[in-house]
């Protein structure tokens, strides 16, 4: 029987079938890492996307190459919610080691698809159970034993498609795109999908309430991970020098960027208009970034927590000697090595004030993949305009997971290369003072090495210096520089991206969040309204220093809940540093910090509790 013509028998009388749950549930695939389930999960995600249903996927993986449990969660949401869903509705239990725990963790009414030999029926009677002989089905379609581990994943794709009414044509399209020009791989994988699909139709009876039905909500949208989006930002910002050291979860920023640069930045003579260098450590990576920025290149690195700690000394030099550079910090769970493959927003304070002495750094806070791209571009403009290191603070959840997005727009303004004097400028001016505030914005003029003019050179140093860049230990000259840097900070406040504000002007309660806490807040605000009758206004931070709009928002509300993914309420602390004493008491925190992406339910309950509900 050909796939697509079979249909799963349904149990019309079952209570589950009576209340169908359509396009609003989560699927969790539990596998062993190294088993190659990534392609299968990606196909499931893209097939649901292909049906026009808003979808998001999260990979929860161990810091390991092979053999430890890994979970991939796909959420279909007709409402467009893309945060992690608090509970799992459909489990695909492929990992014998975690199957029992995974099954016991399900809420009543959930469904479990599992390798029949695991006998999960013994643990639960209040969920829908679908035993499938995966190994047998796989062996039948895949004569090559070495490939069976991989092909087995495609069998569950077929089973899931049949049980949840996933459009098999959308699955086929996703399989073809995934394996692109490799026809043999397409054939093998597609036959595995069909085997699962047909088996389910002939042998299983649908008893769960979860259904996928076509929608029209993904038309024109793209799916991309935040790290690739950030790399695209760097590409369209015209990055020229990239120095890096591999570290999870930032590595894929550079890997994606290398691919993009090779495709788009090799000139007709075969030569590259870029340089990418893998450094010996993060100390060297940031040193190279600053060396290149000093010499006039658009330079960047990407790193995560431990790398950020190592970059502290050089970052202080960048701040004090005023050298542009862009650092993508894809945050993971700390402290120390922490949980390298889990997500968190816990580098806010350490990055904002990275290095000794009075330092502070511009942070951009992308809240979605589109902003990873847009902030990626803005970061380079800001770094050169402000002559300082600029950090883009993303996280593992945003960086390494696939997200739906509107397509990215081509930049509508040219690159801002900042205040750089040429030899012609120097002919006209006669000379310049590197660290003098000529324009009243706290930003001096610089020259690049190689500028062909006898007055072009200046001496860059991390030691005390005066307006003319000469060595100085004079208290007065030091003060002039430190205060000018503060003025520059105020200029930065006016140049960074504005916060995103959603308000009705009536609510007394404001929520402030940033980064990947955003999708959870979007959903949480709906829950608060419908379940607790709590109306909230919402401001999403997109940068530090905070724009005036942030202070206005706080001033116009009685209580402010700052939602973030760390233990120590780091962004709330940063806000308090800037607030008037009378405003500080307004701030409360709702926090999530177990390494998993934040879910709406956790935030809703915390906020409602603090509101006495």
């Amino acid at each position: 029987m050909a796939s697509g013509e079979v249909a799963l028998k349904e149990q019309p009388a079952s209570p589950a079938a009576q209340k169908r749950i359509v396009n609003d549930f989560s699927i969790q695939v539990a596998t062993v890492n190294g088993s190659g389930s990534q392609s299968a999960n990606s196909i499931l995600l893209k097939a649901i996307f292909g049906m026009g249903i808003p979808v998001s996927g999260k990979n929860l993986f161990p810091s390991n190459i092979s053999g430890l449990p890994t979970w991939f969660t796909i959420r279909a949401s007709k409402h467009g919610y893309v945060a992690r869903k608090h509970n799992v509705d459909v489990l695909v239990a492929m990992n014998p080691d975690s199957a029992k725990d995974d099954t016991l963790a399900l809420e009543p009414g959930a469904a479990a698809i599992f390798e029949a030999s695991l006998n999960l029926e013994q643990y639960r009677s209040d969920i829908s159970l679908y035993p499938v002989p995966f190994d047998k089905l796989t062996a039948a379609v895949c004569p090559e034993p070495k490939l069976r581990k991989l092909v087995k994943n495609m069998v569950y794709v077929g089973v899931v498609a049949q049980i949840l009414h996933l459009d098999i044509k959308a699955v086929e399209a996703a399989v073809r795109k995934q394996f692109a020009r490799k026809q043999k791989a397409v054939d093998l994988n597609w036959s595995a999908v069909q085997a699962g699909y047909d088996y389910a139709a002939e042998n299983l009876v649908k008893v769960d309430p979860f259904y996928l039905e076509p929608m029209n909500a993904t038309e024109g949208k793209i799916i991309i991970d935040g790290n690739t989006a950030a790399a695209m930002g760097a590409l369209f910002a015209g990055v020229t020098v990239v120095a890096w050291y591999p570290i999870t979860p930032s590595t894929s920023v550079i890997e994606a960027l290398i691919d993009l640069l090779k495709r788009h930045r090799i000139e007709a003579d075969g030569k590259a208009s870029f340089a990418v260098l893998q450094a010996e450590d993060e100390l060297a990576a940031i040193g190279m970034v600053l060396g290149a920025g000093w010499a006039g290149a658009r330079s960047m690195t990407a790193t995560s927590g431990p790398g950020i700690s190592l970059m502290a000394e050089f970052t202080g030099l960048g701040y004090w000697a005023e050298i542009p550079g862009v650092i993508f910090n894809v945050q993971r769970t700390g402290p120390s090595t922490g949980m390298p493959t889990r997500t968190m927003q816990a580098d806010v304070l350490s990055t904002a004030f990275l290095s000794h002495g009075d330092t502070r750094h511009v942070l951009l806070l992308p809240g979605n993949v589109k902003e990873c791209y847009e902030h990626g571009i803005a970061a380079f403009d800001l770094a050169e305009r402000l002559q300082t290191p600029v950090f883009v603070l993303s996280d593992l959840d945003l960086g390494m997971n696939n997200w739906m997005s509107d397509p990215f727009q081509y930049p509508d303004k040219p690159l801002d290369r900042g205040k750089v004097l040429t030899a012609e400028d120097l002919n006209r001016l006669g000379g310049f003072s590197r660290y003098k505030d000529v324009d009243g914005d706290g930003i001096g003029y610089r020259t690049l090495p190689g500028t062909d003019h006898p007055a072009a050179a200046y001496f860059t140093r991390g030691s005390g210096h005066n307006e003319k860049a000469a060595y100085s230990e004079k208290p007065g000259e030091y003060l002039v520089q430190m205060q000018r840097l503060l003025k520059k900070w105020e200029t930065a406040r006016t140049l960074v991206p504005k916060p995103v504000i959603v308000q009705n002007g009536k609510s007394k309660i404001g929520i402030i969040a940033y980064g990947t806490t955003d999708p959870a807040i979007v959903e949480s605000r709906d829950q608060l309204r419908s379940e607790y009758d709590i109306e909230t206004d919402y401001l999403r931070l997109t940068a530090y220093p905070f724009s005036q709009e942030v202070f206005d928002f706080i001033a116009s509300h009685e209580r402010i809940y700052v939602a973030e993914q760390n233990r120590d309420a780091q962004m709330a602390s940063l806000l308090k540093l800037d607030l008037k004493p009378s405003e500080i008491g307004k701030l409360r925190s709702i926090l999530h910090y177990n390494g998993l992406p934040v879910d709406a339910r956790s935030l809703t309950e915390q906020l409602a509790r603090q509101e006495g509900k």
Partner: protein
Amino acid sequence: MATTSAPTPKVNRIGLPVLDYRGNKTTLCAGCGHNAISERLIDTMFELGIKPEHVMKLSGIGCSSKSPAYFLNRAHSFNSVHGRMPSVATGALLANKNMLALGVSGDGDSASIGMGQFVHMMRRNLPMIYIIEDNGVYGLTKGQFSATADVGSTLKTGVINDLPPIDTCSLAIQLGATFVARSFSGDKQQLSTMLKAAFSHKGTVMIDVVSPCVTFNDHEGSTKSYKFMQANDEPIGEADFVPSFEDIEVDYESGTVYEVHMHDGAQLRLKKLHDDYDPTDKVRAVSLLMESHANNEVLTGIFYVKPESETIIDQMNMVDDALATLPESRTRPSKEALDKIMAYLQ
């Protein structure tokens, strides 16, 4: 009596007086070896007619790293952080590969805190001149041993060094530097010739210059003192350098001299003073260094030179123009490129 007009200052081949190669007044101690090295750099660049704007000076932290302020004021300079100048130089050269990079470091800056970056710069054969002003002691913090201090050498306080020294020259040869030499700040002739040749080299030039610290390490018992060097300096060969803009005359007995044709057309002639000397043989160079050290000699000279080699900059296969100043039309892909990526992601 003839009237005297104002004397015209002597200018070099690009029309600049030596003044244009000078820097600020030194703030190092009188008699510091580092000052002599700065003087040799000034003379060398003046004589070679190097355009100051074509040079970038780079340094780390320490007495040595201050010295770029004392020569070549018309060149951009970057006094960075302790031990990590190589990374800054690497970035700067990636941004503008057409510049001449001149690094000044010290024994602490290179052999202790900076060992990590020192090693990787050599490994990449980064095209720059890297000078270690080596006095075996931390000067700015008032006299602690560095990692190049010899076993048995003493501090002024009487403390004896028990740990073996790191030989930066042996290391550099093993790691991939393509021009490795040692000199003594007091040997004007040798150092000048070496520096001239260095400016003609493509690849990492690593010159360790023993440069006595008159304040903290010039006493009896120090192996980095003027007195010790005058007694124990053992030149491995005699160098003669003919820049590319001068005619080469042959006036030596064949078989006694190594002729090295430098990348830019200059010629370096290395006359044997030592039986086993062969500046093209890495293994022999390293064993000579080890043997001489065992004999309490300080071997000086150009130990190893490989005039044609691939550098990290070559490997990057960059466009001819400096990346730093490429126009937007060459660095930002077109709207069509973005549209194509977007279509693929749908």
